[in-house]
C-alpha cells in the first residue's frame, strides 16, 4: 500500500492520541482521555458518529452475570455497569434501570439460571435473585404462562446507544478533542523503534497523514483489516454477526415492561423481547455469521427465526403492530472475549477488537482500561483542572410540559413547527442538532438524535421537510442531502429538468 502512503503523505497535524472509529466505544474513550492534557484526534470514515456496529444495538445495559468470571469482558461489564448510569447522568442521555430477566421455561433452564447467578455473584454483580414463575407472571403479564422462574438483575436496564455515542463525542469535543468525520484510516505510519518493536507514529487517511504518539484503533468490524496493515494476525477472525430486529409501534396491543432474555446459549444471549427507552418494543437480535461486513439486509429466514424465538417468551405476540425491521452487524469473533491490548510488536499502538455484547454496559470501564494502556505507552497523563463532565442535552420537546413547550416556542419560534408528527419532533430540535458540537448533517444523523422518522409513518411525513431544513441550514442543494453515507441521496434532480434521455417515447 505504498501508493497510498505516497498519495496521502502530507502531514496535516500532530496529536498526542489518535482514535480511529467514532462508535460508542471510541467516543467514550475520547471522552475519558479528554480529562487529561492531551491533544486528541477522533476520526471516522462516515459523515456521522455511531454508524457502524454502534448503530444496531439492542440498547441493553447488561448487569454482567452472563459473561464468564475470569474473562476480560466478564470483569469490565461489572465495573462498567457501575459507572454507566452516572455517565448517562453527566452526559444527559436517557436511561432506565428497569432490571433484566432471564426466563426459565424448563427445569433445565432453572439449572442454567443457577449457574448464571453463581457466575454473577462471583464477579460481584449486585442484587441477583431467582424469582418464581408466579412472580414473573405478576411482573410481566404477557410472559409465557409456563415460566418456571427467572433470574432478576436489578442493575440491568435500557439505554440509548446512539445518543450516548453522540453525547460522549460532543463532551470530548467540548473538552478539546478534535473530531474529523469522513476521514478513513488507510494505513499506518510505522517507524523502527527498537530491536523487537516498531513504532506506530500516526495514521494515513484520505485527508492526509496525521501523526500521534499513541494510536488507538476502535474500528469495530474493520479492526482486523487495519491490523493486517501492521501484520498483526489474531488467532481468530473478525466476522460480522448479523442481528435482525422487529420494531413495534408505541401504540400496540401488547407491551412488555422490562427486558426479557431467554436462557442463553454459548454463542448468543438469544432473542430478547424488550421495551426500549423510546417506548417501542423490539424483538431481537438473531445471530448469524456472515462474510460481507456491509450486509445489513434483513432476511426472511432471519425474521422468521426472530418471531419464533420471541414467541417462546411471549406466546401472544403478533406482528400486526410492526412498523420496521432492521439488521445490524456485531464485530464478533471466535474468541468471545474483548481484546483490548497494546500488541507486543508495536509501541504507541492500542487495539480494540471483538467488542460485542456487553460492549455498551462495559464502555466506561473499557475507557478506563484504555487510559491505563495509554499511560503504559509512555504518555504522561496530567488531569485538566477544567474538565467538564457535563454535556447539556438539547431540549426534547416531546418530554416537556405544556407550559415548558410554550415558553420554548416563545424563545425560539422554530420549536413551534412540528416536523415529525409521529414522534413529536420540532424544527427547532432539528436545527439545534444540525448546529450542535458534532453537527448532524444527514437524515439518519438527525434521526439518531431526535428519534424523528421512527414512528408509525416511518418518515413519510417528515422526509420532504427534513430535506428542506438540511438544505437550508447547511447551504447545500436539496439534491445533495443524503440519508447516511455518500451516495444515499434522496433526490435526483428538479422536475422540469429533463434528463439526457429526453421525454419522447
Amino acid at each position, binding site marked *: 500500500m505504498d501508493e497510498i502512503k505516497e498519495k496521502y503523505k502530507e502531514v496535516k497535524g500532530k496529536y498526542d492520541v489518535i482514535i480511529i472509529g467514532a462508535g460508542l466505544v471510541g467516543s467514550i474513550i475520547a471522552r475519558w482521555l479528554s480529562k487529561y492534557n492531551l491533544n486528541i484526534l477522533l476520526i471516522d470514515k462516515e459523515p456521522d458518529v455511531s454508524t457502524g456496529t454502534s448503530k444496531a444495538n439492542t440498547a441493553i445495559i447488561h448487569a454482567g452475570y452472563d459473561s464468564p468470571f475470569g474473562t476480560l469482558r466478564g470483569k469490565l461489564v461489572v465495573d462498567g455497569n457501575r459507572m454507566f448510569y452516572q455517565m448517562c447522568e453527566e452526559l444527559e442521555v436517557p436511561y432506565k434501570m428497569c432490571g433484566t430477566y432471564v426466563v426459565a421455561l424448563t427445569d433445565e433452564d432453572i439449572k442454567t439460571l443457577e449457574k448464571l447467578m453463581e457466575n454473577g455473584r462471583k464477579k460481584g454483580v449486585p442484587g441477583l435473585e431467582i424469582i418464581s414463575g408466579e412472580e414473573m407472571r405478576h411482573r410481566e403479564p404477557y410472559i409465557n404462562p409456563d415460566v418456571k422462574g427467572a433470574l432478576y438483575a436489578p442493575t440491568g436496564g435500557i439505554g440509548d446507544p446512539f445518543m450516548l455515542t453522540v453525547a460522549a463525542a460532543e463532551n470530548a469535543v467540548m473538552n478539546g478533542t478534535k473530531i474529523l468525520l469522513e476521514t478513513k484510516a488507510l494505513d499506518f505510519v510505522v517507524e523502527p523503534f527498537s530491536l523487537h518493536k516498531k513504532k506506530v507514529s500516526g495514521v494515513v487517511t484520505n485527508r492526509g497523514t496525521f501523526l500521534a504518539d499513541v494510536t488507538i484503533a476502535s474500528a469495530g468490524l474493520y479492526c482486523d483489516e487495519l491490523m493486517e496493515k501492521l501484520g498483526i494476525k489474531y488467532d481468530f477472525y473478525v466476522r460480522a454477526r448479523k442481528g435482525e430486529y422487529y420494531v413495534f409501534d408505541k401504540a400496540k396491543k401488547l407491551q412488555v415492561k422490562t427486558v426479557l432474555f431467554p436462557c442463553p446459549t454459548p454463542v448468543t444471549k438469544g432473542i430478547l423481547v424488550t421495551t426500549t427507552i423510546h417506548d417501542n418494543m423490539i424483538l431481537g437480535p438473531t445471530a448469524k455469521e456472515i462474510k460481507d461486513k456491509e450486509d445489513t439486509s434483513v432476511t426472511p429466514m432471519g425474521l422468521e427465526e426472530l418471531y419464533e424465538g420471541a414467541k417462546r417468551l411471549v406466546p401472544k405476540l403478533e406482528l400486526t403492530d410492526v412498523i420496521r425491521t432492521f439488521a445490524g452487524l456485531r464485530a464478533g469473533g471466535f474468541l468471545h472475549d474483548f481484546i483490548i491490548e497494546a500488541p507486543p510488536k508495536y509501541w504507541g499502538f492500542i487495539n480494540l477488537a471483538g467488542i460485542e455484547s456487553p460492549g455498551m454496559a462495559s464502555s466506561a470501564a473499557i475507557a478506563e482500561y484504555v487510559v491505563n494502556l495509554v499511560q503504559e505507552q509512555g504518555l504522561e497523563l496530567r488531569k485538566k483542572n477544567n474538565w467538564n463532565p457535563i454535556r447539556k442535552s438539547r431540549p426534547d420537546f416531546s418530554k416537556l410540559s405544556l407550559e415548558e413547550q410554550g415558553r420554548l416556542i416563545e424563545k425560539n419560534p422554530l420549536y413551534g413547527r412540528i416536523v415529525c408528527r409521529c414522534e413529536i419532533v420540532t424544527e427547532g430540535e432539528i436545527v439545534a442538532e444540525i448546529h450542535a458540537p458534532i453537527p448532524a448533517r444527514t437524515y439518519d444523523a438527525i434521526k439518531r438524535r431526535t428519534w424523528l422518522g421512527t414512528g408509525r409513518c416511518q418518515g413519510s411525513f417528515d422526509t420532504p421537510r427534513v430535506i428542506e431544513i438540511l438544505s437550508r441550514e447547511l447551504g447545500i442543494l436539496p439534491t445533495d442531502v443524503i440519508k447516511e453515507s455518500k451516495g444515499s441521496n434522496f433526490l435526483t434532480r428538479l422536475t*422540469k429538468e429533463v434528463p439526457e434521455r429526453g421525454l419522447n417515447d
Partner: protein
Amino acid sequence: MVKEKTKLICIACPVGCEMNVTYDGKTVLEVDGNKCKKGINYAETEIVDPKRIIVTTVRVVKGLHRLVPVRSTEAIPKNKIFKVLDKLCEIELDAPVKIHQVVLQDAVETGINIVTSRLLTAKSE
C-alpha cells in the same frame, strides 16, 4: 364493411365501465356495457382520435411554491401529450398567479388551452 371488436374501459368517470365496442375503420357501430351516454362518446373518440386530459406542473418565480399545477381545459390528442409537456417545461410564470390563468394558449395547435388549477400568491418574506 369489416367489423372489428375490441374491449375498452371507459375513463370518462371513476366507474370505469368495461365496454365491448364493434367498429369498422373509424366508425363505431355498436357499444355495450356502458352505464351512460359518456361511454359512447368515449368509445367514438377513442377509436378515431384518442384524447386525454393532461395535468402537470409549471415553474413559478417568487411564488409561495416553486410550482403551480396546471391542466388542459379539455382532452388533447394522445399523440401530442409529450410535445405539450415539453413546451410547458420551458415556461416560467411570475407570481402571483390566478386560478385558471392561461399558461399555454392553443397548446401545440390542439385548440385547447393549458390553465392553472389554483391560485398561487407571491412568497412573503
